[in-house]
């Protein structure tokens, strides 16, 4: 009896200890980890109870069936990701094994021209960073202001209309946005700034439209974060004579900072990976430039163009796009890691 008791306590402690770690995980993974520990704990507790018959564990068919299905789903999604990473890795490795290319050249060379065996990714990377940066310049302030308006100012009825409309905006196919960039935003920029400054294909137009495209994402995720702030904090701020604006900006926003930051980073990852808009509007040739008004091809735009053509599977061109995809993967991965690190830091600070 005593032994059983002891085990249960052990299980209980394990469960307790796993909780803080949970807090810092992204929801999906957190729920997986949660199931994991819960199962671990209950098994431990159950094995301790073997002594008496009436406490014996029953076999429940439904429970174990659902359990296995859930585990299978989790494992499947993990395996898929793993598979993609492995393929990317192998093909990239093959690419770097070719004598003409070295990793050093890939990272430092400023020319990307597969035809003459120049594989420097910098022009593509810089264009990706450029469009993403411009997109964030548009999406951050607008998305955040929309979120603050919806969570702090709008009446429930206004919000009830606004949020679905915003989410509708997110449902528009990106090819439409690409066309919008090419036939509306670019002419607009050319009218405002002059045709001699703004080329037909340019990263500014693509960046701005990507920004518009991710506003709903930023707004919706930030609004969720803002609304999750306990109403007690708002009451406290109003109770001290804070105005609505002071309360929203100085109290609610800092309290929601981890969630808002996460929204930003997800948005950056989305901007980095956005393909259709840049393929249509940013230009079809690698170009290392700091000028947003001339054409430049991004990593995604290049991959889309190259893989659309007829490449033979063993060609160096073909393998080069895997190396580029690997770079994209590393970028989004580091963004994710960064966002988690941020969230953990804010949590520690504020809880």
């Amino acid at each position, binding site marked *: 009896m005593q032994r059983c008791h002891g085990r249960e306590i052990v299980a209980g402690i394990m469960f307790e200890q796993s909780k803080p770690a949970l807090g810092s995980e992204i929801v999906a993974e957190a729920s997986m980890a949660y199931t994991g520990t819960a199962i671990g704990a209950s098994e431990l507790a159950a094995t301790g109870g073997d002594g008496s018959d009436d406490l014996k564990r029953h076999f429940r068919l439904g429970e174990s069936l659902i359990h296995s299905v859930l585990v299978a789903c989790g494992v499947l999604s993990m395996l898929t990701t793993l598979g993609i990473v492995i393929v990317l890795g192998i093909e990239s490795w093959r690419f770097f094994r070719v004598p003409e290319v070295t990793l050093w050249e890939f990272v430092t060379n400023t020319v990307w021209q597969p035809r003459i065996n120049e594989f420097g990714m910098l022009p593509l990377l810089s264009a990706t960073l450029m469009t993403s940066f411009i997109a964030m310049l548009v999406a951050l302030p607008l998305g955040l202001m929309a979120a603050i308006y919806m969570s702090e100012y709008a009446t429930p009825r206004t919000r009830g209309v606004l949020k679905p409309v915003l989410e509708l905006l997110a449902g528009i196919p990106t090819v439409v946005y690409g066309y919008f960039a090419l036939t509306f935003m670019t002419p607009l920029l050319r009218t405002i700034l002059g045709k001699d400054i703004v080329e037909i294909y340019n990263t500014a137009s693509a960046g701005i439209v990507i920004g518009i495209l991710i506003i709903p994402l930023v707004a919706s995720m930030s609004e969720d974060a803002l609304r999750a702030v306990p109403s007690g904090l708002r009451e406290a701020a109003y*109770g001290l004579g*804070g105005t609505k604006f002071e309360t929203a900006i100085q109290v609610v926003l800092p*309290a929601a900072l981890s969630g808002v930051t996460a929204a930003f980073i997800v948005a950056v990852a989305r901007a980095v990976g956005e393909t259709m808009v840049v393929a249509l509007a940013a230009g079809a040739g690698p170009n290392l430039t700091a000028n947003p008004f001339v054409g430049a091809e991004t990593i995604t735009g290049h991959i889309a163009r190259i893989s659309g053509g007829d490449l033979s599977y063993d060609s160096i061109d073909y393998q080069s796009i895997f190396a580029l995809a690997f770079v994209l993967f590393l970028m989004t991965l580091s963004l994710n890691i960064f966002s988690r690190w941020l969230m953990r830091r804010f949590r520690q600070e504020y809880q």
Partner: protein
Amino acid sequence: MAIQTKMATGTSSSSASTLADMTSGGGMAAPAARTHDGPLAIEARNMNIYYGNFHAVRDINLQVEPRKITALIGPSGCGKSTVLRAFNRMNDLVASARVEGEVLFNGRNIYAPEVDAVEVRRRIGMVFQKPNPFPKSIYDNVAWGAKVNGFKGDMDGLVEQALRNAALWDEVKDKLKQSGYSLSGGQQQRLCIARAIAIKPEIILMDEPCSALDPIATLAIEDLMKELVEKYTIMIVTHNMQQAARVSDYTAFFMVDPKRTGHLVEYGPTRQLFTNPKEKRTEDYITGRFG
């Protein structure tokens, strides 16, 4: 100043009688038993509060004495919080809430259309049931209210003074830059009180400020209230009869009628209300024979 004097004379007629002369409150909710003619801190007149169609409290007449502790007691759901929040227009934040009647503060009805709720709350501060520090440092928690109130003087001095008044200074003086969440529950509540004091309000409203605290922290807050009442008017909602009896000078007892509408049953000096209540219902409630 002129307004205050006028108000004082205005109220003197209704409160000329001394406590000894007071007889039963009659059919209406009992008016305050005033023992002197000075100006009131705040006064509710014929206050009715609704949440949508629900009549939450009715016909509240409450005269709150300055620099005294007034306790609001009564069973759960009788509208204590609703009444308390009406005194600094916190009910404005509830979309469905509607307040009728008058709340006179310095001779002005705070519900008059030209009155700014934000200005009201700068003069009538509030401490809530659950400690709710901002996600900021201890220092910034205290400084925030003063900052948004346009305080331009010696902020360090103000923060220290507020923390000293809230009996928290010695515990936090070496970690002012740390998060407010790094404190214990009782310390957090004292931080919230310090935050409320820092804006130098005339009245502090406290809604069950000790309900999340252990007995020792509770006593610390009670001691604190007794010190604060030398400078401020305090109104406190509490479920704890002993607490009301220990700290308050005046007590208002609320109950609900069959339609669940809250009303003021009896209001008077705490001693009298606890030792010699005029209403049978009050006696039943404070002696625990409520049913």
